[in-house]
């Protein structure tokens, strides 16, 4: 139990560090802003209590917000994603799996299932985040483009990370 908590704490810190020190400094285009820290919430086991997911979403959102100049968007987006996750899992997995400590990953959900899972939730997160960040519906389509391309990149990075760590875990 303590080991698990430590494991999650370490993962939390590493993801935040990776996000602010590396990912945020890659300037591909104004349309591509990947946010991979949310993989922390995505990879929580199915049977994590919903309120724990929400509190963790709040915490990681707050941490991200404290590194940006405007607070709020990351909290709102991550909490929304954490809340939607429950419904997606209810919809996509059977009852037995929902109550088992299985982590969503390529090996447990299958490549396609995992891809859709990540895509849907990342899209929800980015949709909320980019609209709150723009704070207006002016240039609606440019915000939509931003959401779309950033979602693609975030998903790509998450899948790449999964493949990398999945391989290591198999050995």
């Amino acid at each position, binding site marked *: 139990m303590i080991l698990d908590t430590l494991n999650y704490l370490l993962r939390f810190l590493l993801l935040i560090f990776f996000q*602010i*020190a590396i990912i*945020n*400094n890659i*300037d*591909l*285009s*104004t*349309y*591509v*802003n990947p946010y991979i820290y949310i993989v922390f919430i995505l990879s929580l086991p199915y049977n994590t209590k*919903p*309120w724990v997911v*929400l509190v963790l*979403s*709040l915490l990681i*959102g707050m941490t991200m*917000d*404290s*590194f*940006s*100049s*405007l*607070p*709020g*968007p990351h*909290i*709102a987006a991550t*909490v*929304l994603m954490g*809340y939607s996750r*429950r419904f997606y899992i209810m919809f996509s997995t059977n009852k037995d799996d929902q109550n088992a400590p299985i982590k969503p990953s390529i090996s447990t959900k299958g490549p396609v299932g995992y891809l859709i899972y990540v895509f849907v939730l990342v899209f929800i997160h980015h949709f909320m985040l*980019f609209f*709150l*960040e*723009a*704070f*207006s519906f*002016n*240039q609606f389509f*440019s*915000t939509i483009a*931003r959401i779309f391309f950033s979602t693609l990149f975030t998903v790509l990075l998450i899948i790449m990370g999964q493949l990398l760590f999945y391989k290591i875990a198999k050995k």
Partner: protein
Amino acid sequence: MKNLVFFIYKYFVFFMFLAFEFFALIVLFRFNNYQQASFLNYTSSTSSTIFNTINSTTGYFNLKTLNDSLQLENARLRTQSLQSYYQNGITKTEINDTLFKQQYIYIAAQVVNNSISKRNNFITIDKGTLHGVKRFDGVICPNGVVGIVWQVTPYYSLVQSVLNSKSSTGAKIKKTGDIGSITWDGSNSLFAQLSKVNTYVPVAVGDEVVSTAQSASYPEEIPIGKIVKIDRNPEKNDYDITILIHTPFSRLKNVYVVRNLFKESQQSAETKALEEEAKK
């Protein structure tokens, strides 16, 4: 009562979700209307320390380019200094305090945190009220304008970058002296838009766009960019001009905060004129 407790228990997670979202939105609205205390006050101590650590590590990578740009600037300043002018005839350089009064002071600062790819970009710099920075001071770098100081704390300031939907920088076309305003449409961090330039003004691709002292935030003639594209706006009888920004926002490191010592008197004169206009 029992039913109520049961109801809350059943939808506990939903209520928690609502509470968290409500919290996020309140925080967002509160800080988005910048009148409130700056968010920077709450986070600067920890997050800035971390950003400082990251910067001091990554700072080595572009030392060479930085040195080059600073050297170029030094060369330019040396050319402007009094010693580099040949004095014709009898020397008459009397320093007269009533003729020369210092208007601008420059405070050197380092960029601590910077973003260019969001819709509203801000830059955190490591100088604050203790170093003499005030709100709405201009910030420039050796290559051109950077933005306006938006929030100040004792040790750090938050700068609203030119790459921000809310920023509007007064600018003029160097060749003709005509005034316009620089905004950013959010699509590319290399280009900004110059608007409000009337169609009778003879603009051409390649013209330099520089700052104007009318806004009281920047000194006169700080470079901003170069015109790369001119479109006519048929509805408003003015041009939609695209400019290539000179400031390298993606690798911004050394900046100067410009404190205009006459700003308060300029602004009080302007408000007085407005008040008198209103009385009539």
